[in-house]
């Protein structure tokens, strides 16, 4: 530590010029003489910078890129012209076709998206608290919600960029290789698929941020998040099956209407799982031929023209799924907000 005189040179000059203890109001002005960036923007910028340089993100990026390339390769080698060449929709086919050796990309994403969300968010708050950076940060003149929101928004910006680039790369590559023109409806469907994927990752991100607020140790929150994910991807179906077998009557003795009712009930139960919501929604968005997510009766099918649905109709079918995912994300974020805003910050 050197002579403090150096410190006063310039740094306190404004205060010094008044040559007496400054009144509170005067000091206020000296701090804000020009309009600086908002604290929120500064935190987001820093978070994104940290994120893209971190090993964790590079690993996740490599994982997603590999999955993407593998599933595209499988689908490209298996695409065959359909019955109606004018309704072929090549680019949607690239995303959904598979020969069974590998799940298609959108099915892959239903569990990779969860890993991505959990991986980016599980230590968002508690690692900063453990390292003692959180208390320093919150001792600065920023609002707490700015910090929490930045922790949520920054990874979202990064993954939106990531998926948009992947999607555009696929379209561009497809155009170059096949020379098939892309249709407007395909662009709409692919972009809505990307946004849906971002929403799905956002759900897992906000869940893992919530856990990182709740638990002091990053490992605890990571394990809990992975536990929840495993429960929904593996055990939840088993549990639902068990309940169905135990409580629902044998379908052999039921009327067709009742079977329909019970089938819908089972589907609704399965849709508590966010992975199921995502899989349903992407299936409808990427396969225009899919007309409904539940069973249809013969009466409903009667008179239906076997054409692909329009984009608007597909969106209408998946609207409940979208709302469900959005609601779950909001609930998790609201909970983390509730826990974080009034809690004591200590290192």
């Amino acid at each position, binding site marked *: 530590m050197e002579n403090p005189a150096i*410190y006063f040179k*310039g740094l*306190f000059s404004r205060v010094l010029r008044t040559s007496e203890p400054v009144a509170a109001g005067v000091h206020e002005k*000296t701090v804000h003489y020009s309009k*600086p*960036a908002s604290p929120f923007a500064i935190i987001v910028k820093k978070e994104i910078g940290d994120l893209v340089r971190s090993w964790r993100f590079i690993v996740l990026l490599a994982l997603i890129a590999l999955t993407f390339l593998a599933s595209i390769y499988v689908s490209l080698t298996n695409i065959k012209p359909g019955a109606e060449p004018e309704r072929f929709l090549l680019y949607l086919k690239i995303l959904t076709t598979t020969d069974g050796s590998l799940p298609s990309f959108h099915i892959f994403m239903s569990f990779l998206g969860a890993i991505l969300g959990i991986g980016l968010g599980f230590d968002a708050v508690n690692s900063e608290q453990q390292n003692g*950076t959180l208390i320093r940060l919150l001792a*600065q*003149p920023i609002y707490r919600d700015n910090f929490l929101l930045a922790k949520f928004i920054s990874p979202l910006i990064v993954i939106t960029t990531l998926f948009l680039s992947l999607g555009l790369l696929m379209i561009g590559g497809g155009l170059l290789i096949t020379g098939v023109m892309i249709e407007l409806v395909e662009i709409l469907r692919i972009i809505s698929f990307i946004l849906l994927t971002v929403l799905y990752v956002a759900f897992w991100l906000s869940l893992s941020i919530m856990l990182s607020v709740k638990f002091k140790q990053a490992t605890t929150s990571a394990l809990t998040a992975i536990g929840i994910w495993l429960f929904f991807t593996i055990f939840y179906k088993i549990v639902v099956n068990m309940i169905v077998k135990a409580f629902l009557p044998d379908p052999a003795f039921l009327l067709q209407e009742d079977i329909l009712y019970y089938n819908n009930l089972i589907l609704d139960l399965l849709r508590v799982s966010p992975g199921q919501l995502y899989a349903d929604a992407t299936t409808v968005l990427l396969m225009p031929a899919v007309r409904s997510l539940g069973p249809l009766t013969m009466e409903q099918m009667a008179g239906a023209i076997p054409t692909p649905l329009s984009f608007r109709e597909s969106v209408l079918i998946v609207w409940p799924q979208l709302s469900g995912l959005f609601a779950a994300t909001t609930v998790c974020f609201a909970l983390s907000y509730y826990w974080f805003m009034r809690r004591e910050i200590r*290192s």
Partner: protein
Amino acid sequence: MENPVIELIGLTKLYGSLKAVDNLDLSIGRGEIYGLLGPNGAGKTTTILMMLGLTEPSAGSVTVCGFNATSNPVAVKRKVGYMPDNMGFYDGLNALDNLVYIARLNGIPESKVRDRARELMEMVGLENAMHKKAGTYSRGMKQRLGLAEVLIKQPEVIILDEPTNGIDPGGVKEFLTLIRQLSRQQHITVLLSSHHLNQVQQVCDRVGIFVEGRLLANDHISRLSTEVASRESQVVTVSFGGAPQLSEVHTQALMNTEGVKAVELSGNSIEITGAPGLTPSYVRFFVAHGFDITGVHQKEYNLEDVYQRYFENISTEKETNGKSGNIFQRSFFKGIKN
């Protein structure tokens, strides 16, 4: 006190049934250096967190620079530089970037932010290490970086929680001198918490002794010492050449002297506890009985004794640093004995 910068009124913080801070009243004026002294777990950090709105008081109010810290923490944090105990930096960023980040959050314009950060790094003596990753910094360097970060926002109030932890003695001296200079020249109010008495003694205008959430004493150091000295009995140690032939008769005679409370014989010396101002009469007594006196030591009261006095009854974790004087004395006597 007129227009106190920091004013705590009836501040209370409960953790379940535990009272971390108990009905605390305190005001600190502009330009003052106030030392909050207390053992670990006394509630110092909790009080500081409440001043910054980082935790909510169970009762009472905190006003800093005219703003209520609980309802308007951002206004308070604009004026207060806070250096926490055990702070951390973003290890992946270099030290300068860490500082620049904080400077930006404090609304320092983008055009000046780098220059100012560099200036401050020089000032705290880190100019050669500013491009190193913060993760490679030693504890003392982090402390300096922390100080730079506190100063970059040009605070009116600086709150330092255990600022001297982990710095070597030379560094502590520099650090505290710097803080004192800043406070004097810029009328910056400084509140520092510590359990290192002797360090606080050097710089503080006033100290508050804080034990189990209560402020037991709150005054200028000199006044606190005299207060304790007059209230306490004085300890006088008389050493003799060769083992003194002290018998029960002598001790009894001493005990009968007006004001003497205890007499303890240990090897070549005798320790007499009694009312202040009795030292000449002890010497006269020993001379009259024909003992060879080689030394008389009258114990002076400093803040450490004040501190100890308040800590005696508290069975909390004893801080070896605070008790160093005692240990020294004990070993000293052992040396004579052998």
